[in-house]
């Protein structure tokens, strides 16, 4: 579970259905700062052990099912290397 | 293109050089002036503060000259014709962003009503001692265009010419007046708007997807894109490639700075504006600019009465310097005589071009007054022997 410090359970959480997101990491653009990993409210990410082209450890999606497409990782990433999309949008995109 | 009649105060006027320059800017289509008060140039700003609201112009008095030059660069990118006006100390403060204007290739005009220096110097008295500063004052290598009027009428005419040159070649153009010209009152004839030729902004005809902000045309000058039309261009004071992106290496520096120099040097023949009298059979040629050219008139007359063949070359364009002409003339004459209100600035260029082929004689002093024609006459007489 995510660190409770960063995630407050909304009062109406049983009524509202959380959206589902899919996270994309543009690995070679990442500079391994760890912001997304640290602050993702759902603990979706960890820094991988593998290196990218630049020698940084990009994040790895370890709990894809938990992602709520909250956009935090996209906004907090200083490198424009990670983002999430709403699952429905992705289906639209499929050829 | 003809001048916008809104800005043209057609008629015969009795104006000093500062006011005439302000009218020149109005007529040339300048619609933005950011300035800061400084003697002896303030009257230009004052006149525009009065006139601009009635011709669709914006005048803003900035917090200092650093801000004035930055604001006119911004407004020029915004698509207006812009100018600022100052004197020595303010000119010194503007130097860094004059370099930015050169690097970004930003059309604008800087009027310097010269006074005695260094430092606060002689705020109310004339000098011509910023001529080399106009040429070299900002750091780095570049070429500049500078004009020098010798009457209120020319303050009007040359301000228009300066604005046009800045649009044609996309660079800051300097109008180097002096306190004497700035405060001298004479007849100024302002023609009809349709008699004034205006160089319009060189807007690009490229589409945004193929446009490169620093791709030169045949005359080595790139075309400008308007803001907000999808060009989404970038421009920087850093060394840049044709996309306008910073590329910090020797190769790009050569290409970038090389073209900034070439666009002035290779077009110099079209830029020169010179006044020539009796050069063909001259033994002595008087080279002058600005107020010194007028003070020299009686000296030349007196020397001719003595039978000395004196030719006259007046540098209306001081920069770029007419190197080839001076080289050519140097072979045929005994000497050049050059009065300047400084201890020798533009005369250094003359000496360089002459290369020892004839004598050069500076008639200079530290400023605060114009020459005594007698001193110029004496110099002519001495070198003619």
């Amino acid at each position, binding site marked *: 579970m995510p660190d409770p410090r960063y995630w407050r359970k909304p009062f109406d959480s049983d009524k509202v259905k959380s959206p589902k997101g899919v996270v994309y990491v543009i690995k070679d653009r990442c500079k391994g*700062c760890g912001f997304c990993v640290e602050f993702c409210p759902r603990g979706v990410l960890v820094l991988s052990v593998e290196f990218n082209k630049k020698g940084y450890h990009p994040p790895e999606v370890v709990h894809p099912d938990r992602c709520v497409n909250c956009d*935090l990782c996209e906004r907090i990433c200083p490198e424009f290397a990670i983002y999430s999309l709403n699952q429905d949008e992705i289906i639209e995109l499929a050829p | 293109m003809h001048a916008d009649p809104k800005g043209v105060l057609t008629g015969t006027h009795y104006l000093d050089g500062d006011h005439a320059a302000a009218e020149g800017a109005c007529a040339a289509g300048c619609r933005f002036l950011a300035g800061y008060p400084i003697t002896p140039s303030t009257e230009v700003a004052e006149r525009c503060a009065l006139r601009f609201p009635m011709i669709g112009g914006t005048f803003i008095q900035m917090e200092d000259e*650093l801000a004035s030059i*930055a*604001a006119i660069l*911004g407004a020029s990118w915004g698509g207006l014709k812009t100018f600022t006006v100052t004197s020595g100390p303010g000119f010194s403060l503007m130097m860094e*962003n004059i370099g930015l204007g050169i690097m970004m290739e930003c059309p604008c005009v800087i009027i310097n009503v010269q006074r005695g220096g260094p430092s606060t110097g002689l705020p109310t008295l004339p000098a011509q001692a910023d001529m080399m500063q106009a040429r070299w004052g900002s750091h780095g290598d570049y070429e500049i265009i500078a004009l020098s009027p010798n009457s209120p009428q020319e303050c009007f005419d040359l301000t228009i010419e300066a604005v046009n040159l800045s649009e044609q070649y996309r660079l800051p153009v300097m109008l180097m007046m002096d306190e004497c010209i700035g405060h001298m009152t004479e007849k100024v004839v302002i023609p009809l708007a349709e008699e004034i030729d205006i160089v319009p902004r060189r807007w690009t005809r490229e589409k945004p997807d193929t446009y490169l902000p620093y791709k030169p045309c045949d005359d080595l000058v790139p075309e400008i894109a308007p803001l*907000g039309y999808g060009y*989404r261009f970038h421009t*920087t004071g850093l060394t840049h490639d044709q996309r306008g992106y910073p590329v910090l290496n020797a190769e790009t520096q050569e290409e970038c700075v090389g073209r900034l120099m070439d666009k002035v040097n290779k077009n110099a023949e079209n830029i020169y504006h010179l006044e020539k009298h009796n050069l063909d059979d001259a033994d002595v040629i008087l080279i002058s600019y600005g107020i010194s050219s007028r003070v020299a008139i009686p000296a030349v007359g007196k020397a001719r009465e003595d039978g000395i063949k004196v030719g006259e070359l007046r540098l209306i364009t001081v920069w770029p310097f007419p190197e080839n002409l001076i080289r050519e003339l140097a072979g045929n004459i005994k000497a050049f005589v050059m009065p300047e209100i400084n201890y020798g600035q533009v005369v250094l260029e003359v000496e360089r071009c002459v290369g020892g082929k004839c004598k050069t004689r500076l008639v200079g002093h530290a400023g605060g007054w114009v020459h005594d024609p007698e001193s110029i006459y004496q110099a002519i007489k001495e070198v003619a022997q």
Partner: protein
Amino acid sequence: MTVAENKKTIGNIPEHPKSLLLRMDRMPHIWCSRCGIGIVVGCLAAALEKAGLSPDDITITSGIGCTGRVAGYVKVDSFHTTHGRAIPFAVGLALSRPDLKHVVFSGDGDLVSIGGNHFIHAARRNQNLLVICVNNFTYAMTGGQLAPTTPVTARATTAPYGSFENPFCLPNLAISAGADYVARWTSLHIRRMTDTFEEALNREGFRFIEIIAPCSTIYARRNKLGTGLDLMKYYYENSEIKHDATAEELEIGFQTKIVVGKFVDKERPSYARAMNRHLGKILGKKYIPPEVGGPQ
């Protein structure tokens, strides 16, 4: 931009959703790992989108320094000017193109040290500018010198024994110079920062938003504060939202509490509006409002 519009891919995945607002051909940018500047750029891009603005509705002007490089990474008409002169340059842009929105995006040293005079006068005149200042308490690009924002006792290369000079508190400076809209967030406050940008973009007059952000490589390291990530955690623990904070509460000491919020939100006529109104009143029919630049 919606996903469907973003046809570009990178590898086998769609390109980043903000890629239409950024110069992806210039990525990776020059900022260090764990630097906060990129976050602020991303939030501005998000705010533009939320505010329903097209990249052709705005210009961005920067000065010099690490944050000064922002203008080079945003895909709008953008100007990378000289040290300290972003504001007066943008004043010229704003007065010649009042139909566009003009953003100045620069660092603390650039905006309030070398450019300090321009800052207060643009605020005083209420020029139509949104000024975003990334404050990392140091001159980062030149290697970590003392800034006008460096907290007392913090170290810099030119204050090797720690600073003993009083720093500027930027919101206080902006407020006392008369700014219409003043806010401060840290680079951790991504949502509030984005919302504030969005709100400020649609307002008139001088708007100032300070973003406290980590300089990981220089400031954090020299002051033994860990990395940018540690500073982000520090902001989490130590920032307090207080919209009605007093001037004293807004001061920032070395690793003290950081009070954030929107402190001023008022409406005065902008310089351009005041000019039009006043001159129109005095000159009547003789007044011709300023020409707008661009092809006729």
